């Protein structure tokens, strides 16, 4: 039973395993890391499930807010066709349906909850269809990104002449054998001391390592890194990451659309984006990915240049977009706000638990807690640049250190990586050498930090709740005034 744990880091050519006695793990130690995996998994799902529910609720609200515009357009289209071909009066039907409900608000007898629910569901249908289209476009765009498209991933295979690179590729294959997943492709790119695993699913995974990684590690530590990556592959992090990116993107794209109506440049960009969503080609899909980067990134600088002062008079463009303000602009802003301020940080927290879980799983695969701890310590001690391809940020072993360290996961103000010292502490708990753990952070400070952040989150949360309700009412009011009124006028003219 060779795990080749004791190769000397000072002499990289020492390939050989120590013929030292291989000791079985005692039952209690085994139990511990299986327990740790289960605990981290529970923690991750505890955050992920509320996130999923909140996303569903937000999507439903946005779909309902879009209803006046979409039903208006649909109804007017039916009216126009009606001029040539007799069609049912969709708008009249819907109007009477809403009218009954609104009347019941004034009278003493409120309509039953079931009727309101039915109205909400009917209202949400076209918005839901539109969102499904956006999700499919996003999925196609993501599948086309280097993250999921095997041919687009950069990098070269291990050089036959470089024993170290071959050794890393071998340790990845070893860990794949330990996790019973197919051995992933291993590529190397010019980059810092970091590695990531990505791909559409576990049988088409690619492990990418920066060339800065290997000089810092011995074989045992390479095995630890490989084990973390394979654990992440075997746990389906890639799929979960894609779903998360799709969910966040679903709320980010409308925000991008909502900020880009007011002027010519923004309008053109928005039209291109909508074009890309509806009729995707590879080049257009890249545009979606760029738009996902940051919904509220300051695009104002270029906009200010084109904006000419016209006093208080509204331009024709602003008049033309009035019907869109309520359903698209305000609700897009709402979606973007909630996803950036609340969903993305929560997702980052869940992702941290998944990192801990991959660490614990790596120990389960190598049965050697020192392997990963040694590698993490070596990378942080070397102070090496850990930058790797930005699109693979959330799947890296250690924080790549760029601000957009997880551009696909929202780039929120909460990092998707737990602090290295906490990861090392978690590994020490499941049996790693405590010598590695060098943190001198006092317990009191972290306690204070926890209380402060809890207070901060409560304040932000309650503020957000108020803002969300306000935005919903503003959106409904503006929709009523600027969307439904013109639609009703046109409807009256056409019928």
């Amino acid at each position, binding site marked *: 039973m060779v795990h080749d744990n004791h190769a000397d880091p000072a002499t990289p050519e*020492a390939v*050989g395993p120590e*013929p030292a006695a291989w000791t079985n793990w005692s039952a209690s130690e085994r139990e511990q890391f299986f327990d740790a995996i289960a605990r981290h998994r529970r923690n991750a799902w505890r955050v992920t499930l509320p996130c999923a529910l909140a996303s569903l609720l937000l999507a439903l609200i946005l779909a309902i807010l879009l209803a006046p515009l979409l039903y208006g357009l649909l109804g007017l289209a039916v009216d126009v066709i009606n001029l040539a071909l007799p069609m049912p009066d969709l708008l009249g039907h819907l109007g009477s349906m809403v009218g009954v409900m609104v009347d019941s608000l004034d009278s003493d007898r409120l309509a039953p909850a079931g009727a309101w629910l039915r109205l909400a569901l009917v209202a949400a249908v076209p918005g839901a269809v539109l969102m499904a289209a956006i999700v499919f476009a996003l999925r196609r765009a993501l599948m086309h990104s280097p993250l999921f498209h095997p041919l687009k991933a950069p990098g070269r295979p291990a050089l036959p002449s470089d024993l170290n690179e071959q*050794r890393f590729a*071998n340790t990845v294959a*070893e860990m794949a*054998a*330990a*996790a019973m997943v197919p051995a992933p492709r291993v590529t190397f790119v010019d980059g810092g001391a970091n590695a990531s695993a990505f791909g559409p699913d576990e049988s088409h995974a690619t492990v990418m390592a920066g060339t800065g990684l290997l000089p810092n590690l011995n074989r045992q530590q390479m095995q630890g890194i490989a084990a973390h990556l394979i654990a992440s592959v075997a746990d389906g992090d890639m799929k979960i990451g894609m779903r998360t990116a799709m969910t966040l993107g679903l709320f980010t794209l409308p925000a991008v659309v909502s900020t880009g109506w007011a002027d010519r440049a923004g309008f053109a960009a928005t039209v291109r984006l909508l074009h890309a969503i509806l009729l995707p080609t590879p080049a257009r899909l890249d545009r979606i990915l760029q738009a996902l980067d940051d919904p509220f990134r300051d695009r104002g600088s270029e906009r200010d240049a084109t904006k000419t002062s016209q006093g208080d008079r509204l331009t024709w463009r602003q008049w033309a977009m009035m019907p869109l303000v309520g359903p698209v602009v305000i609700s897009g802003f709402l979606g973007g706000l909630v996803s950036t301020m609340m969903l993305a940080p929560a997702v980052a927290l869940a992702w941290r638990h998944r990192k801990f879980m991959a660490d614990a799983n790596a120990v*389960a695969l190598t049965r050697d807690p020192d392997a990963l701890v040694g590698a993490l310590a070596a990378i942080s001690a070397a102070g090496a640049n850990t930058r790797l391809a930005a699109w693979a940020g959330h799947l890296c072993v250690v924080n790549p250190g760029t601000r957009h360290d997880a551009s696909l996961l929202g780039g929120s103000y909460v990092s998707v990586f737990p602090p290295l010292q906490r990861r090392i502490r978690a590994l020490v708990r499941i049996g790693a050498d405590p010598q590695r753990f060098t943190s001198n952070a006092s317990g009191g400070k972290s306690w204070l930090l926890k209380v402060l952040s809890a207070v901060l989150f409560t304040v932000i949360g309650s503020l957000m709740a108020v803002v969300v309700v306000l935005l919903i009412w503003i959106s409904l009011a503006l929709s009523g005034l600027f969307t439904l009124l013109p639609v009703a006028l046109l409807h009256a003219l056409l019928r």
Partner: protein
Amino acid sequence: MDSSITVAIALGVFFVWALVIYNRLVALRNRVANGLAQIDVQLKRRHDLIPNLVETARGYLSHERQTLEAVVSARAAAQAAGQAGTRDAGDEPAMAAMASAEGALSTSLGRLFALAEAYPDLKANQNMMQLSEEITTTENKLSFARQAFNDAVMHFNTALESFPAVMFAGALGFKRAVMLAPLDSDIERKVPAVRF
């Protein structure tokens, strides 16, 4: 009327529950079988590497024919035992025979690499360095595949003996799987020391 609906719902829930347990057992059993197949793959790979190793070493170790021949014959024995042993995870004697033949192969490989220590030319040979990394990784894959197999067996057996499953799993033809014994005798436990 109401009570019959309740009974039907309860039966339905029970049926779905039993189905879930059954499917889980099947999945775990397949994982055990897959684990065994993976070990087989790694053993074959190990057996394939040995002729290369012997060829590379032969030029340098002309005076150590005995050791080289011991490796070759241990490989042949391990190959034969492997064919019998990897057919069924439940066949304990065949599995034990395979483990002992592989252990003997490890021992003879260990002797070969210990000998190679004394030949600096052989140690510095580029081909030999590549081969030793190959053999190291194959040995590691083998032990990790064994570990994965044993974990799969543990999960399968735990599921099999847990409460609801234990009542009907036997009737449905699920048998306990056997873990691979650790290579526990002193000779077998020695690993080829690939030191360069």
